[in-house]
Each structure stands twice: as structure tokens, then as C-alpha cells.
């Protein structure tokens, strides 16, 4: 067989070079490079030019002012805390609602299960923006939903606490509620995946050995679903902490989340170095939960 | 003789000092062997013994770290899998799930310079060979495991390879189907004349299928021979123990006379005679090995040189024969098979639990292993 050097190269190295190389080069140019520019930008100096930054010149080459401001200006610390708190509360509420739902899904008959699973996934395919919007309709002062809650409130509390409507829009409560709503499928699916894999004979063995159902849950089901809990928790927490759409639409502008701060610094204040520094700080914070997640993923895979 | 000039007596496949190292793990250590044209040759060993790695080197999926492989006189170094006249039947069969049986069989032919009609004829011929003509238009998931195995065989044979590699060909089949398929494989091999190299961990499979067997352990070939040679004349404790079951005793060569060896068994305080083997000298420590079915059990003192006393500790009845486990005075356990030639109830057997019995064996049945 006579192969030209070119065919030989394509057979041996070329094919893997192209398959690895094309996406690699793409990601380096359109993801890594922009990201490195942001990191560099975070130590640049804001100027009134276009583009509004400069390195060196009359300013120091590496300007750490933006980072200093993160730690000294109350706005940034508060925004970080609000973001982490909102994301954490949303994650816990998703877990409290999603765990029983996922468990229930494993207990219903096969035919029902497929239909219900599809109903869990369905919102995931529909527009995120519209799902947030749907809640704006419910939370508004004149909506039937708000009216119903207001009536219930007025019925339950003393007369002088009565309100005309419950202020839900533009609060942290609204942000958390909508986050739970939009991210709930992210919690249910990994939980369902890990619960569905469990061997039902383990439950039976535990019961056979004298455990009551609540003990079976505590001793057998719960420990085995930890990878699902961690995966679901991170899938909710990470995007929730950096969320921009939800706080902008239903959040409190006076108490912004970090995503909104980054966006405002960039677009409104035109302070690119500050926006970049906050972005870098947010990413550093994100590394911690990501490492927890990969640690558990790795352990789950190792034990397979 | 130049390597690429096949002369008289040049074997069809020659593996010369082949080694394969993965990182720090040496999977195959300095293996040399030859295979003749038209042979069924088995590589037998437990998992991790290097047999599959050796097979993959023949197919071209791995390059040897050292050593060379010659097929029909041609050095295979650097020849990629797609240019080798070697085809493989994979353990998982590796049928293309998106193609019909017919398309699977025809796949290799698309690289062959032949007319569409010849191609169709070859596919038909192959499907007839493995009796799958009625299933030609089914997809792999629509046929049974045994049929899938035959598709894999037909697909590998369609291009008329010089060498067919079979990786655990019967492992995925159930026991009943396995026996039938074994004979079918042999008959197809005879009809096509293709040289087969079979990798298996199943000693019975290797014994029935093969003309010759290479027993492998920890990357090395321990013995090569016909099934009879491997079973009756193992060259090491490993091979003796790997194929069938065997009783072993520590022994010392006392003397050599009249073509026989006299051995003392220090643990038993007994003396036995065995068939002479070269390379042992009086005074040397050796291992004496005897297959269970070569040991006779009797209540009365037997005639002949090799007799040991013992008592029955355990017995298991298998129908056509029984397995006895006998304790010798030294405490050693010996296994012996006895054919149940007579029909009857418990009283018909040679011995019962705790009976004192005599064990005896022919000097020719005793294997002396100098290790």
C-alpha cells in the first residue's frame, strides 16, 4: 500500500490534531482571551477616554484601586452578601421542595413517572425570561394572586395590621421566590437521578432488620443521595449567585445583587476596571463551591 | 535468512521477543512463538495475563514496545490496523448498531476493489456460511446473542483475512449454546482454512477448540503445546495447576534406575517411582504432581510400587464419578476421582466416610516438575 505523506499524517496525527485543535483554538480566542482581558482590565485605571481605561502613562501600570474599593466601599460587600444569602436561601428552599418531589417521582408507577418527569423538564425548555415574567404578573399589587394572599393575611392578623396589598415586587423575597421557581428543575433532576439508582432491596433489607420507615430514610436513602444533593445544590447556587435577570426585574434596586452591580458599573458608570475587579472577585468566590462539587462528583464516580 | 523472504519452513506467524509496557506496567514480557498456516492456536490465561494485549498487537491496535511480528514473512511493525490482513472478532462482537446484518458483513468489503455484484455475492456466501440468510435485513438489536456472534464472525471473514483473531469468542453465550458454537467454529475454520488465534480464559474451551495452546501468566508464555501435552506433560506447577486440578507433593530425587526415578516424599515418609524426566539429578528437590483421575482407591493393599495409606475425609457424588478427599497420615489432603462403574445405592461405592483406604498410581502417571 502506498500512502502519500499527507494521508499518512492525516491517519496518524492529523485527525486528532484537528478534532482537538478546532474547539481548543475557538475557546482560547473567544473565551480565554476575553477572560484574560477582563483580569488585566481589573488592574487598569479608569479614564474618560474611549475605551475608558489606560495602562501606565501617568497612572501606575498595575492599579489595585478597584480591589481596594471592593473591601472598603460598603456597596460591594453588601452586594456580595446579598447575592450569597439569596443564592443560599434559594438553594435550601429548592432542596426542601425538590427532595420530596424527586422521592415521590421514584415511587409513582412507570407510566406516571415519564409524564411527570416531562412536566419537570418542560419549564427548562421554555424561556427563562418568560418564566420570570410570569411571576411578575402574579406578584403585582392588583393581581388575583396578591389579592388572595392579602385576603388571607387580613383574615389571620389583627385589624390594625391589615394591608391593601402585600408588597412583593422589588424585594429580596421576590428574588428568592423566582429563583426557587426557575431553578427548581435543576435541583429535582440530579436528585431524581441519584434516588432512582438506589437499590430498593436496600430499603427492604433495612426494614427487615427492624428499621421504621423514617429510620430507613435517615440511614439508607439520605446518605446515598448526598451526591445528588450536592450536584443539585451547586446547579442552583452557582447560577443564582451571579444572577442578573431576576434581580433586575423583580429585585430591590437599593439592595442589588452582585450581577447587577457588575452590569451597572460597566454600562452606567462606564467604570470598566471596577466592573472587571468585581467580576474577578465573584469568580474567585465561585471557585469554592465548584471545587466542592467536583470533589463529590469525583468521589461518586470513583465509587462506581 | 532475510526476514521478508519466506523460505521453506518459515512459519506463517512469527512473534519474536515481543514486549509491551504501559507506563510502569509490563503487560507482555518477551513473548516468542510461531503459528502454522491453518492452525487454531489459543492464548490461554487468567485476566491480566497479557493475552488480550498480545492479540491487540497482532491486530495493530497496540505497537509492541520491543520485539517484532512477522505475518506471512512480512514485518508488521508500523502497519496500521486498517492495512493489516488480520481481522478480529471482538468479545462484545462490536456490531455496528445502526447497520443491518447484511451491511455489517459488507462493511469491510467497501475498501476492497471489487464489483458491486461480487460484493453482494460475497455477502450472500458469508451469510450462508453462518446460516443467517433469513436475518440479512435485521439490525443487531433484533437478533439473539448467538446470531450476533455469527454476524461478527461472518463480518470478520468476509475480507478473507490471513489471520482471524477471536477475543473470548464464546464468553457471552450461555452454556448450552457454547458447546454447539464451539463445534461450529471448528467446522467453519476447516472450511475456510483461515488461521485462527483465540484468546480465552476458559481451559475447556481452549482444550476442545485448539490445535495448540500457549498458556500465559503475568505477561509471559509458560508453555506451548497441544492440549494433550499441556494436560499430561505440564512443565511447571503453574501450568499443571491452571489446567484441571492436580495433587502436588514436595519430593526429593533419590536415584535414577531403569528409566525410572525413585523419589522420597519427606512429609509422608514414603518412597515412590515415577517416569524419568531429563534435567533432574539425584538429591534435587522436585515437585511430584498427580491428576486426581489417575489415582486408584482400593480397600485392599494394591499391587505395584506406588501405594499410600489414607482415610476418606469427604466425598462428593457427581453421578458418573465421585470425588474423594483423602487425608494422609501426614495430614496432607489428596483428591482422587473414581468412576462409578457399578450401578447401585450407597453400598456400591468404593469407600465411605472415615474408611481406611489405599491410594495407588502408575509410575507413568506421576509428573515430576523440577522447579
Amino acid at each position, binding site marked *: 500500500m502506498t500512502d502519500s505523506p499527507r494521508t499518512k499524517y492525516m491517519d496518524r496525527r492529523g485527525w486528532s490534531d484537528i478534532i482537538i485543535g478546532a474547539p481548543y483554538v475557538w475557546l482560547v480566542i473567544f473565551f480565554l482571551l476575553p477572560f484574560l482581558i477582563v483580569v488585566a482590565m481589573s488592574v487598569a485605571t479608569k479614564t474618560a477616554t474611549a475605551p475608558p481605561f489606560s495602562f501606565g502613562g501617568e497612572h501606575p501600570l498595575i492599579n489595585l484601586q478597584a480591589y481596594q474599593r471592593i473591601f472598603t466601599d460598603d456597596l460591594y460587600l453588601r452586594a456580595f452578601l446579598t447575592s450569597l444569602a439569596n443564592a443560599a436561601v434559594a438553594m435550601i428552599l429548592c432542596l426542601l421542595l425538590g427532595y420530596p418531589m424527586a422521592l415521590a417521582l421514584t415511587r409513582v408507577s412507570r407510566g406516571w413517572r415519564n409524564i411527570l418527569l416531562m412536566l419537570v423538564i418542560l419549564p427548562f425548555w421554555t424561556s427563562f425570561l418568560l418564566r420570570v415574567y*410570569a411571576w411578575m404578573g402574579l406578584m403585582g399589587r392588583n393581581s388575583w394572586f396578591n389579592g388572595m394572599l392579602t385576603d388571607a393575611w387580613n383574615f389571620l392578623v389583627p385589624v390594625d395590621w391589615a394591608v391593601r396589598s402585600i408588597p412583593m415586587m422589588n424585594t429580596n423575597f421576590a428574588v428568592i421566590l423566582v429563583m426557587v421557581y426557575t431553578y427548581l428543575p435543576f435541583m429535582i433532576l440530579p436528585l431524581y437521578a441519584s434516588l432512582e439508582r438506589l437499590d430498593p432491596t436496600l430499603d427492604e433489607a433495612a426494614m427487615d432488620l427492624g428499621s421504621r420507615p423514617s429510620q430507613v430514610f435517615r440511614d439508607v436513602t439520605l446518605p446515598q443521595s448526598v451526591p445528588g444533593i450536592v450536584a443539585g445544590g451547586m446547579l442552583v447556587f452557582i447560577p443564582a449567585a451571579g444572577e442578573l435577570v431576576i434581580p433586575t426585574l423583580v429585585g430591590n434596586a437599593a439592595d442589588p445583587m452582585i450581577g447587577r452591580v457588575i452590569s451597572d458599573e460597566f454600562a452606567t458608570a462606564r467604570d470598566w476596571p471596577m466592573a472587571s475587579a468585581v467580576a474577578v472577585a465573584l469568580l474567585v468566590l465561585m471557585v469554592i463551591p465548584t471545587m466542592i462539587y467536583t470533589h463529590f462528583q469525583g468521589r461518586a464516580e470513583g465509587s462506581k | 535468512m532475510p526476514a521478508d523472504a519466506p523460505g521453506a519452513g518459515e512459519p506463517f506467524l512469527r512473534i519474536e521477543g515481543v514486549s509491551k509496557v504501559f507506563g510502569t506496567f509490563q503487560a507482555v514480557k518477551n513473548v516468542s512463538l510461531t503459528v502454522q498456516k491453518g492452525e487454531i492456536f489459543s492464548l490461554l490465561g487468567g485476566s491480566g495475563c497479557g493475552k488480550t494485549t498480545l492479540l491487540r498487537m497482532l491486530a495493530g491496535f497496540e505497537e509492541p514496545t520491543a520485539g517484532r511480528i512477522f505475518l506471512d514473512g512480512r514485518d508488521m511493525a508500523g502497519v496500521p490496523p486498517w492495512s493489516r490482513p488480520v481481522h478480529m472478532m471482538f468479545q462484545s462482537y462490536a456490531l455496528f448498531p445502526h447497520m443491518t446484518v447484511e451491511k455489517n458483513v459488507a462493511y469491510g468489503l467497501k475498501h476492497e476493489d471489487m464489483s458491486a455484484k461480487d460484493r453482494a455475492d460475497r455477502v450472500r456466501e458469508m451469510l450462508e456460511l453462518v446460516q443467517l440468510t433469513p436475518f440479512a435485513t435485521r439490525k443487531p438489536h433484533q437478533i439473539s446473542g448467538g446470531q450476533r456472534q455469527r454476524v461478527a464472525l461472518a463480518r470478520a471473514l468476509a475480507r478473507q483475512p490471513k489471520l482471524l483473531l477471536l477475543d473470548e469468542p464464546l464468553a457471552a453465550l450461555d452454556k448450552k449454546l457454547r458447546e454447539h458454537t464451539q463445534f461450529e467454529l471448528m467446522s467453519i475454520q476447516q472450511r475456510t482454512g483461515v488461521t485462527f488465534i483465540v484468546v480465552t480464559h476458559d481451559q475447556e474451551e481452549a482444550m476442545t477448540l485448539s490445535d495448540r495452546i500457549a498458556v500465559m501468566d503475568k505477561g509471559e508464555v509458560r508453555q506451548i503445546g497441544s492440549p494433550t501435552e499441556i494436560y499430561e506433560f505440564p512443565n511447571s506447577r503453574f501450568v499443571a495447576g491452571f489446567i484441571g486440578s492436580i495433587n502436588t507433593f514436595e519430593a526429593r530425587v533419590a536415584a535414577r534406575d531403569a528409566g525410572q526415578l525413585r523419589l522420597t516424599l519427606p512429609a509422608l515418609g514414603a518412597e515412590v517411582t515415577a517416569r524419568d524426566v531429563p534435567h533432574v539429578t539425584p538429591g534435587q528437590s522436585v515437585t511430584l504432581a498427580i491428576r486426581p483421575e489417575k489415582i486408584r482407591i482400593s480397600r485392599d493393599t494394591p499391587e505395584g510400587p506406588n501405594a499410600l495409606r489414607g482415610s476418606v475425609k469427604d466425598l462428593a457424588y457427581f453421578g458418573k464419578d465421585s470425588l474423594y478427599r483423602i487425608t494422609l497420615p501426614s495430614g496432607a489432603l489428596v483428591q482422587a476421582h473414581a468412576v462409578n462403574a457399578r450401578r447401585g445405592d450407597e453400598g456400591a461405592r468404593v469407600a465411605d466416610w472415615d474408611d481406611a483406604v489405599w491410594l495407588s498410581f502408575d509410575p507413568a502417571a506421576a509428573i515430576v516438575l523440577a522447579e
Partner: protein
Amino acid sequence: MKRSPVFLITVLCFGFAFLYIPILSMIVYSFNASRLATVWGGFSTKWYVSLLSNKQVMDALILSLKIALVSATFATILGTMAGIALARFRKFKGRVMFSGLVTAPLIMPEVITGISSLIFFILMAEWIGWPGQRGFTTITLAHITFSMVFVTTIVQARMVQADRAIEEAAMDLGSRPWQVLFDVTLPVISPAILSGWLLAFTISLDDVVITTFTTGPGATTLPLLIWSKVKLGVTPDINALATLMVVTVGLGVILAGIILNRAEARRLADERMAYRSND
């Protein structure tokens, strides 16, 4: 023997009510005759009629579909390559960084991806004169970049499951690596590639944040249009638009689900047949 799952079923019902009541409410109010979006004023389909004659909405929809089509296709090609690379080539130079690059966009907050893309495009225009104007091209490039990694995740998972021996068998039968890729690998993982494409398409069609940053004058996608209107509050014509979108996607997903279920049932039936014909 099983614990009576009354509690679980109750939570399940509550959860589904929570998931679907907002959407159902939105659908109902899209037929509201009143201009006040949250006060019921009788049944009407006038918002749908005005929507279909709204050129702005139609233009935005067409732009969104174009971007989604192009970006999903490129994202699928690149993402599939990356998925195959990670699953098949165990060791290559820069693998650690490569797998990092493939995971990072998944966890990177969209705001940051958006801002970094924008800064990148502005500086590129400054330095090399490209891209001259932000719009279709820049949005599409950004969408390809962050949706390709989702394709990679799906394809990689499928590739890891696939029997490696199938590809080796094709090679053994005389096919060179490229032929193996097109004859065997891609057909075998085609369902994963298709779901990857659908996911990339949906992500692109749905994206607001990254699009806000990478868009330019005149390039208004449908989510951007909705975003600018929604920021001002709830309106009945957005209710109608949202209803159309949700119903279209919902029907599509349900249909796909039914088709997949059928295919699965047929495969099981085939396997039973194969078992019976065992000889």
C-alpha cells in the same frame, strides 16, 4: 410494605402547582380584553391579532431564529469535536487546560461572559478593525462559544458509554480514522448530537444577558425586545407573545417525548422478538 406516600404526593402536587400556576395564569390573562394586564376585563383575542401584525416582533423573531440556527449548528460541530476529543484522546498536550476551558463557561456567570465578550469585541475593533459593527456576527460568535460546551457535555457522556470496540472493529475492517468517524462514531452518537443541537438552539433562542452585551445598533432579538418591554412592567401583548412561545415549545417537547417513548417501546419489542428467535 411501602410507607404510605401521602406526604410525598402532597408535596409533589404542591410543587407542580408552583411550577405551572404562574404560566397558566399568564396564558389566561393573555385573553384578557382589558388593557390593564392584571385586572380581568372579559375574553378577547385582540392581543394575538395585534401581535401578528407587529412588524417589530416578527423581525425580532426572525433574527433570533437565524442566530439560533447558525450558532446551534456551529456550536454542535465544535462541541461534538471537543466531546469526542475528551472521551477518546486520554492523553494529549494541554488536556487539563482543555477540559478546564470546556467546563469554565458552564459555571461562569452570564454577566461576566457578556462583559468579557463585549470588551473583547470593542478592543478587537480598536486593534485590528474587526468586528466593524456589533450585531448578528458578534451575538452569534458569543452564542457559539457558551453553548458549545453544553453540546460537549452531552456528547462526552454518550461517548464514554459507547463501546470503543465498535470503532476498533471498523478500523480493523480497513477504515481509516476519518472513515471510522463518519461511518461509525457519528451515526452511533447521533441522538446525543441531535439533543446537543436542540439544547444549543434553545439556549441561543432564550438568551438575554449575553445578547444584551454583544448586540449592536439595530440587532434586536426577540428576548431583547421582550426584556426591554418587561422592564417597564406587565402588559397584555407580552402575555400573548409569551403564551405563543410557551405553547409552541411545550407542544414541541411533548411531541418529542412521545416520539422517543414510542421508539423506546419499539426497541424493547424488537429485543423480545430477538430473544424468542434465539436458536
